[in-house]
């Protein structure tokens, strides 16, 4: 039994890799409950009429893509199905690449560039750029990511300010992020906002959702997975959730292995361990 307490490190790593890669190649399908946040976001997007114009903020970079990209793809699939028009923008330097990747990996690849969707690229300046965008879209994004004038695209006809936009969707792990869209855009134009954020940022954004300034949020990979299920296109994130569940279970099993043997031993020599634990509980020590 003591052997359970000293599993070699490399074994643990191999098991972790198997546990993570296995479900990615062959999903198990552990049921994923849908939370109210995701349902609200889904219903908001679902309420868009065909032909509505949506601004999609690709405000993430390769470093955070693992968590953010599946969210973007799931929502993009839904938008494609709803026959709306999408204007892709970015306030992150590497966002335009992310946009190109996401458009080409979803149903948007079959749609017409410039008519159904466009990728207007990146503008520097953070929060100030978001403010400029709200009041003057063609001025702030005067060209697309390849440098073609944005006024040359049919999709951009009649788009001046954020008031001409039916909804803003931003996928943002940091700043500028949902807070900036709320302050700079919602404050003046009351444009509907949906935000995708990392799991750790949900609590930061929650107050805006409570106040109704953001209509819906997606948090981390689980958010993306739930959305994929609602759009009925289970993809990367759903597969990743199985991996996620197994990884959590693996850690719990390992913790159990570590503790069960000593649990039995403790029964034999309780008095000893009691005095030992009292010492260990000393301030500042290891816990």
């Amino acid at each position: 039994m003591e052997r359970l307490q000293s599993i070699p490190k490399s074994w643990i790593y191999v098991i972790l890799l198997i546990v993570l890669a296995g479900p990615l190649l062959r999903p198990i399908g552990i049921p994923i409950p849908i939370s109210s946040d995701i349902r609200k976001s889904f219903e908001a997007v679902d309420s868009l009429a065909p032909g509505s114009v949506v601004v999609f903020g690709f405000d993430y970079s390769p470093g955070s893509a693992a968590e953010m990209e599946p969210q973007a793809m799931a929502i993009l699939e839904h938008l494609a199905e709803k026959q709306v028009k999408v204007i892709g923008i970015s306030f992150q330097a590497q966002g335009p690449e992310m946009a190109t990747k996401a458009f080409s990996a979803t149903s948007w690849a079959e749609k017409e560039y410039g008519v159904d969707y466009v990728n207007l690229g990146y503008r520097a300046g953070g929060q100030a750029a978001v403010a400029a965008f709200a009041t003057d879209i063609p001025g702030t994004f005067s060209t697309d990511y390849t440098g073609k004038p944005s006024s040359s695209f049919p999709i951009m006809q009649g788009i001046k300010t954020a008031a001409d936009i039916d909804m803003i969707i931003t996928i943002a792990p940091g700043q500028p992020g949902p807070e900036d869209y709320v302050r700079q855009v919602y404050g003046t134009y009351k444009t509907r906002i949906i935000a995708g954020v990392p799991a750790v940022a949900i609590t930061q954004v929650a107050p805006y959702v409570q106040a109704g300034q953001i209509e819906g949020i997606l948090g981390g990979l689980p958010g993306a997975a739930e959305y994929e299920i609602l759009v009925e296109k289970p993809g990367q994130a759903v597969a990743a959730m199985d991996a996620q569940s197994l990884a959590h279970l693996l850690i719990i099993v390992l913790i159990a292995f570590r503790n069960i043997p000593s649990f039995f031993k403790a029964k034999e020599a309780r008095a000893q361990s009691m005095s030992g634990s009292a010492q260990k509980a000393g301030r500042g020590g290891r816990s």
Partner: protein
Amino acid sequence: MLIEVGKQFSFASLFLLFVLFIYCIREARRGKVPQIRKLAALDAIEEAVGRATEVGRPVHFSPGIIELTHERSAQTLAGLSVLSYVAKLCARYDTDLVTTIMKPDVYVVAEEIVKQSFLEEGKPDRFSGEMVRFIGAEQFAYAAAAVGIMYREQVAANIMIGSWLAEALLLTEAGAQTGGIQVTGSATVAQLPFLVVASDYCLIGEEIYAASAYLSQNPVELAVVRGQDLAKVAVIALMCVGSVLLAFGSEAILQLITK
């Protein structure tokens, strides 16, 4: 009013804290020296350096990855004051020290501190440029280099006090692999759980700021720590009174604080 509405109470508290700390320092100069409780993590540093000396392997120190002009720079400075203690111990025991640094401005200060510590221990010639190493200005490049160094030089003690981001766990795991005592400390709440779990001793939050007083046992510094305690009593009282009043329907305290 010259102070912005919504920040007036904060400004007043800052002023009161300044007054309180200065008062405590004056009391200490009059001879009233307070005692502070044991901080096991700091006692463990000497043991850690001692063991490294016995096995003839170096001690690794890092003051975190935050630059001097940053909002969390106070943690870096707290780390650097522990560095001066660690460097003196290393000088005294003729033990090798490896300080890894991610921010260039911190490197400038850290090198000065280590040099000075060796000078004060009367061993300026034992100091070498290899003791303070700038290793890459990006978070994970720093981590990659630091774990590489820790492994290759088989450090026998790992002391990390400062502000960290996700890379903290990489360093503590490298430290666990090479063995020896690990002493960590931080006031960055997001990383504390990992430091507490992965190291042998961890200074939590405010404890890193008391480290300098504890290590030097300087009466004036101890007096300031006592001042911090008095401030905490006041805060607890304020929260209790505020809540009781609120329960009876008065928002007086809440309004005062948000002024």
